[in-house]
């Protein structure tokens, strides 16, 4: 996706209490690279384990640092070994982490460092050399929504189901997820990066038009419930929801309120619900950090590109 820069470290903050049990959270630690709080990955599993010690382990390559997210043992529910290569700012990585959280799967998060692709990344994704990459029992799976489907397939016996049961509903989720990737999300980026006013206006119009379509899709897919997936977060929730961080950052950079309760009330309410969900909390990058990151990237590309 894009180059990753390490944001300045976060001042310490804590997710004070578990909203379900009201018990105080045990904060793992602050991630040394992203500065983000290491997410308490899976709330319900956190309560079951007696300890949640994280361990830091140096990988063979100098650049990558691994952090065990929610620790104790390396064993997952099925006793398998799960690693995820990613970066804090990537919405695509966030998709895969949300899916793992939903299924309560233990995994080792390996943060790729800005400007350097680790040996492990190059080995496990030689075709695209991009994150996210899920490595399950030594076998790599690439492409975010393919990984999400894989997670749903492997841990099919563990609720919630990420894709709905009915083939037509599944088709709707897949169709709209592809629309998000192919048309909508690119227009979000274009609206803050466009070089001309005309291009910007066109991109902005596309973002709004897309949101209108997605509002209708929400109505159709949710069947009156809180998520595209119904009662629980599903495939399309993950595909669209994980881009909310960047949408908010773009709103800040452009001064345009894209997700507007007046225009797309269902989506606006859904967005809040999504961000507040246990499986998502702690994964969504802070808006200000993303804005800073985006500005650094833009400056970098401007200096790199010759003047036209």
């Amino acid at each position: 996706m894009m180059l990753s820069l390490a944001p300045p470290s976060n001042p310490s903050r804590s997710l004070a209490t578990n909203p379900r049990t009201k018990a105080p959270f045990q904060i793992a630690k602050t991630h040394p690279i992203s500065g983000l709080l290491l997410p308490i990955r899976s709330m319900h599993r956190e309560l079951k384990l007696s300890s949640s010690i994280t361990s830091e382990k140096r990988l063979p390559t100098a650049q990558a640092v691994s952090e065990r997210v929610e620790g104790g043992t390396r064993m997952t529910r099925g006793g398998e070994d799960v690693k995820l290569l990613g970066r804090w700012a990537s919405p695509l990585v966030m998709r895969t982490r949300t899916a793992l959280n939903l299924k309560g799967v233990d995994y080792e998060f390996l943060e790729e460092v800005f400007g350097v692709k680790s040996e492990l990344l190059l080995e496990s994704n030689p075709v695209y050399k991009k994150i996210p990459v899920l490595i399950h029992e030594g076998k790599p799976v690439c492409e975010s929504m393919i990984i999400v489907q894989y997670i749903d397939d492997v841990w099919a016996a563990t609720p919630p189901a990420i894709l709905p049961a009915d083939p037509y509903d599944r088709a709707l989720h897949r169709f709209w997820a592809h629309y998000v990737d192919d048309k909508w999300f690119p227009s979000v980026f274009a609206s803050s990066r466009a070089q001309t006013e005309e291009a910007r206006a066109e991109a902005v119009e596309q973002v709004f038009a897309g949101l209108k379509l997605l509002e209708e899709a929400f109505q159709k897919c949710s069947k009156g419930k809180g998520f595209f997936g119904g009662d629980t977060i599903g495939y399309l929730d993950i595909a669209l929801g994980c881009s909310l961080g960047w949408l908010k950052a773009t709103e800040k950079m452009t001064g345009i309120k894209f997700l507007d309760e007046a225009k797309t009330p269902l989506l606006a309410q859904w967005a809040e619900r999504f961000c507040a969900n246990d499986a998502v909390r702690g994964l969504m990058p802070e808006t200000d950090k993303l804005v800073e990151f985006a500005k650094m990237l833009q400056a970098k590309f401007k200096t790199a590109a010759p003047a036209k």
Partner: protein
Amino acid sequence: MAEAEVKLLGTWSSPFVLRIKWALKLKGVEYDFIEEDLQNKSPLLLKYNPVHKKVPVLVHDGKSIAESYVILEYIDETWKENPILPEDPYQRAMARFWSKFGDEKFLPSMWKFFISQGEKREEALVSASENLKILEGELKGKKFFNGETLGFADISLGWIVDTVSLLEEIMELKMIDEQRYPSLSAWMKNFSDFPGIKDSFPPQERMLTKYRTLREAYFATTRGTN
């Protein structure tokens, strides 16, 4: 098996439509084919695919599904005979990965090569060849991308079988030769010999004319800017 009402909106030449025909044929599903004129889109197409207004669109019991790979998954999930996707989750992920690679990386690189001129042509050839090597590497030792029998990835990549030879004829250049790409060459033969696939490719003469015309038109529009 209950007869359900199935329609497929498509064109005679679209490789994306062809893959749906293959899937339906493999599953033994009867359907009505509705030929669309993309220069003059029908109300039916606009009704069933308002977002993209493209083909293929599958209509099943009045419900429409668009985007070829979405349709393929729907077909596999709805009609259980002769599964297209494997059962194993990792193999399924691989099938989806190679299908995506074909559409998002390989196809654009082939097209770019086809419409390039001069210096850009060399670059484009290198890129397309790299992608061919990747596919060759993935196939090595296998009869089909899916293993012993034809599956999701094969259906998604099947356009290579007739389209590449078409482009080779127009460009007077052999891209997939047996020496450099033994597995791919064998796969192309295995694929086209597979029951149900054999006589399904669109008429070659008509395709040659169509692609030659497209290429000329492209050269004409870019002549001024090159």
